């Protein structure tokens, strides 16, 4: 297969660039060679288009070119930080914690805690409230505050229902609800 590709490359052609897939691939390669000071190639080859590509030509290497696409670095940095915040891999599982009425959010590392009691205690200290007692059927009783979390589906769930390991995998962020909204959730009906 490799030999076949090489033969094509040495073949003399009179066509204009772009009229033939092979010529196109050759142009791309030669341009990259001219500028190998600048092209930082990634380790993995990725396919650019998914479905409707012709399969005769191998997908071009997706190299990162300096200053391309032409997006201001300020903009690049601001969009990128959004993605980084939602990553759960690597060191720690940092999620945002909000409390109704508090002026700003906090962040905690879920991987620091071994279970719900440790987590809830930490939240109580951080936001200076108390969470009441958890009942499997009725939720949290004895407090105006109810700890909830947003799961991967975007639903707001009561903290404590599912096993801890499942919780830390599906939890995207925490929210300590209070007031009438919390009561609606906390009371068993």
């Amino acid at each position, binding site marked *: 297969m490799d030999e076949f590709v090489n033969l094509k490359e040495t073949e003399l052609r009179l066509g*204009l*660039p*772009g*009229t*033939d*897939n092979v010529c*196109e691939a050759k*142009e*791309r390669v030669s*341009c990259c060679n*001219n*500028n190998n*000071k*600048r092209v930082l190639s990634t380790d993995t080859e*990725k*396919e*650019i*288009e*998914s479905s409707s590509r012709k399969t005769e030509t191998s997908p*071009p290497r*997706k190299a*990162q*070119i*300096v*200053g*391309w*696409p*032409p*997006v*201001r*670095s*300020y*903009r*690049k940095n*601001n*969009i*990128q930080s*959004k*993605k980084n915040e939602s990553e759960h891999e690597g060191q720690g599982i940092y999620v945002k914690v*909000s409390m*109704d*009425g508090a*002026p*700003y*959010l906090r962040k905690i590392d879920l991987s620091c805690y071994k279970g719900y009691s440790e987590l809830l205690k930490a939240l109580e200290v951080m936001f200076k409230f108390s969470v009441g007692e958890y009942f499997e059927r009725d939720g949290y009783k004895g407090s105006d505050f109810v700890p909830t979390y947003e799961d991967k589906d975007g639903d*707001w769930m009561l903290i404590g229902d599912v096993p801890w390991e499942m919780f830390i995998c599906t939890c995207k962020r925490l*929210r300590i*609800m*209070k*007031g009438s*909204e919390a009561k609606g959730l906390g009371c068993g009906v």
Partner: protein
Amino acid sequence: MNYFPDEVIEHVFDFVVSHRDRNSISLVCKSWHKIERLSRKEVFIGNCYAINPERLIGRFPCLKSLTLKGKPHFADFNLVPHEWGGFVLPWIEALARSRVGLEELRLKRMVVTDESLELLSRSFANFKSLVLVSCEGFTTDGLASIAANCRQLRELDLQENEIDDHRGQWLNCFPDSCTTLISLNFACLKGETNVAALERLVARSPNLKSLKLNRAVPLDALARLMSCAPQLVDLGVGSYENEPDPESFAKLMTAIEKCMSLRSLSGFLEVAPLCLPAFYPICQNLISLNLSYAAEIQGNHLIKLIQLCKRLQRLWILDSIGDKGLAVVAATCKELQELRVFPSDVHGEEDNNAAVTEVGLVAISAGCPKLHSILYFCKQMTNAALIAVAKNCPNFIRFRLCILEPHKPDHITSQSLDEGFGAIVQACKGLRRLSVSGLLTDQVFLYIGMYAEQLEMLSIAFAGDTDKGMLYVLNGCKKMRKLEIRDSPFGNAALLADVGRYETMRSLWMSSCEVTLGGCKRLAQNSPRLNVEIINENENNRMEQNEEDEREKVDKLYLYRTVVGTRKDAPPYVRIL
């Protein structure tokens, strides 16, 4: 020539506002030159190295407003090293020394230090307006000086600057007596904001029309701020993330409903989409909407919002809106004049099927007859689409198309996109700015040279086959002012064909092309009014000049016309021939 006394002529000149027109009238005769220069209030300098502060002040001693641009455009994309130049301090020092009554300073791509800001704040008693775009080198300490010392401050507008946020109390530095603010934009600050100080400032600024907040200003603070300032015309929303409790949300809705003057909305740096509906009541009044930083709002939420914005003239958005979303824009925003679609996936990491294609572009062109300005990032394009766009919208002034993958051909015919861009330049007789991309041969430049008679700025990347391409452009586009080229096979023959041409232009940038050191030297030899700069940061500095190889290709070439010769502030890796 002069049948009128000078004061009368000066009064007539007062009505001539555009700097180009004023430049023209100053060329008519000596007398007009003198009257014009002594009455000139606003000066625009497109390249801070084309002139120096002393000569500027000598010619326009009464100037009140100065606009300066520093680094070349490609500096936005990390192609120019940070210490290249564009320092504003010498300008401020000179203006201060000469006691110019400076009231307004607008800087783009310049290096601004805290020292400069401090000096600025202390030197001009009537200073009113500071606008910094894509600048760097300063911290919130510099902002504190401006806040504290500029008693007449009306405008502090910080757009997309890299500011070191010391998390200080710069907002507290506005004295209680400061009530003159009209415009305050600190969206690009990354640190925490003293919300209480901000609220007090807004409460005592009855003329405040434009307020753009940063990330750290949360939802309930926003509600309070808007209640204090229902006269706002332009609002940049900060952090909008929290699922608010119903009370806060209700307060926000009440506050928004009172802002009947609101015409421009931006920000949404962190968003919970469920909060967007709070803005529905004022959407019908909006003429400008910038959601290009709102990475977390999905297409369908965007669509619901945009469907209400029937008067929109300007829309900046991410490509997550998709072709479907653009069809909604086309159906709704019949007044649209400017559209920018930015890539949400800048590093090409995701196989984003929701991104926009040629279909969205054609839909917009068909639905929005007043469209004259577009910036469009997409993954694929066709000649047929561009031809349709040209037919639908012959009024383009700015047309910037960026196909994310270099050299990408028409994805249906696999041909180059020469014909598509050719159709654009042929139909759009008023085109002043053009950026091309995708697979392009010399042919597209032949078309550009032939038809783009009004073209002033052209950006070329990964395009063309031979020197002929660049020559077509230089020979044809008589009004060209800024030409920037990267990664294209243009060499010495094109560069040297008409050296005198470059004095009619502001600047030329060529990087990763075929020009050699020898070619640049020859260019510089007979051109005293051009600065020819060679930027070679990767070089292990070759000190021995006799050893250097003139056939060596030049990494980055930046040349520009100037009346003040070689600049003295260039770093060691910039060589000025």
